[in-house]
């Protein structure tokens, strides 16, 4: 599968999202983010990497527009929320509706947008197929394994053809094997469809394997203290995990992370 072109920073006039000197302070007095500058560039896979509690998830919520910063600006260059081609969000938990079938869970965004029944059926069927859940259309979440639930969640995030996919440590609760398989499947979907990804994780290995760029966060209050671009061509697979560039990048990112926590 050919890799979509990931343009270099200089050639891009307009980032998808731009965070400028963002500060996020909560009512109970905790400052989660301070002085955060971050551009999300079209087509890239950007990982936000940092220790637990450094404000990565808070930054993701700001990018999504689910909360407003207490200082600084968040610019979003995306279509209106209530339409196709906007933002897809995958939480740490699958966050499915337990009473609804896989089909209905995946179709939720389209139902909200008021898309016609036939189009919903077509899109949902297609997405369920792509995430490898064919045959489980009528199943309820309780009947699925943890990995399968996460696949439903990913399918739901992608069904409305988002330009920006936000992932908040989606695989943290999964076992190693399921996690690796989901990584590869998600990577393939990204390569095929060319959306932009912002991926929150605390795994150096995972971020290097998946990303085109990693933003390393400092401890709280979080800001970006280092950026690492990963110039490895797709398709990334088992070979990439053993390549020199993978290992050296992991070492480099680990060092930056250690510095950030100092």
């Amino acid at each position: 599968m050919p890799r979509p072109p990931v343009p270099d920073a200089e050639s891009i006039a307009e980032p998808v999202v731009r965070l400028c000197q963002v500060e996020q302070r909560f009512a109970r007095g905790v400052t989660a983010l301070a002085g955060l500058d971050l551009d999300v560039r079209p087509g890239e896979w950007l990982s936000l990497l940092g220790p637990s509690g450094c404000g990565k998830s808070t930054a993701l919520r700001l990018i999504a527009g689910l909360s407003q910063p207490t200082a600084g600006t968040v610019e979003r260059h995306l279509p209106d929320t209530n339409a196709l081609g906007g933002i897809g969000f995958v939480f740490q938990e699958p966050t499915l509706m337990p009473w609804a079938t896989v089909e209905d869970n995946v179709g939720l965004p389209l139902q909200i947008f008021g898309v016609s029944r036939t189009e919903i059926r077509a899109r949902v069927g297609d997405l369920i197929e792509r995430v490898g859940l064919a045959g489980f259309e009528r199943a309820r979440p309780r009947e699925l394994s943890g990995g399968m639930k996460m696949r439903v969640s990913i399918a739901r995030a992608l069904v409305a053809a988002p330009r920006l996919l936000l992932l908040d440590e989606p695989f943290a609760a999964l076992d190693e094997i399921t996690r690796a398989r989901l990584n590869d499947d998600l990577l393939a979907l990204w390569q095929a469809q060319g959306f932009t990804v912002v991926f929150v994780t605390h795994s150096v290995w995972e971020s290097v394997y998946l990303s085109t760029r990693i933003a390393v966060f400092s401890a709280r209050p979080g800001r970006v203290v280092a950026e690492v671009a990963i110039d490895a061509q797709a398709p990334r697979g088992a070979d990439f995990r053993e390549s020199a560039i993978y290992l050296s990048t992991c070492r480099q990112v680990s060092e930056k992370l250690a510095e950030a926590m100092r």
Partner: protein
Amino acid sequence: MSRLQRWLSALGPPFAVILLSLAVWEGLVRWRHIPEYILPGPLRIAAALGESWPTLLSSLLFTLAVTGEALLAAVVLGGGLAVLLAQSRWIERSFFPLAVILQVTPIVAIAPLLLIWIHNVRLALVVCAGIVAFFPMVANTTLGLNSADHNLLDLLRLYGASRWQVFRRVRLPSALPYFLGGLRISGGLALIGAVVAELVAGSGGTETGLAYRILESGYNLQIPRMFAALVLLSAAGVLLWAALSGLSWLLLHRWHESALRREG
């Protein structure tokens, strides 16, 4: 294990305990020669039930009708109020205490007032029973509507869902298990409310419920008949509970109960 075997193993022990208790009761009454106006044995009660069956049956139907109407009113009004309360914290804080006051004031104390205000005795009974059944519906449904998954609510906000869409797609289904739990409690309470109200009203005439039969039998020292009415009341309570549990199972077992097939 076959279906029949499972039923037997589930229902066998409780039935055995009930039968044994009845046997001990009957034996005790006969052995100690307890007069029937103090404590009739189960066989005598069964006979009394047979003797007064037509009267008791019509009284049972009356009590059940009052209970059913009260429960329906509690569901509609209580559920409706819960929807209103769930709209904002401010509304909930303002109105919830009123519901609590209504709940904690003993219905026996309110019943005489209601009987003075409402001339139609039957309606007064329904109102009394409804007040008792009202609170669990409000409290449970409000809790249910507010306990929707916050991430799911965020997701809907992200997609620009309207208030109505959020309500219908997430809040209402999230509230369903809580609502049904409240319904089971309210069912039992409505029956108690109907009985208490009727005891206070002490109404006679053509249309009378089981509570009045109990009073009447007491005045006439027909203690076996009194027990027969009591047995019917218990049976009505059990039946109501079973029916509401069945409804709950019907609506929830696909997603809220266990016993589902698993992957591979």
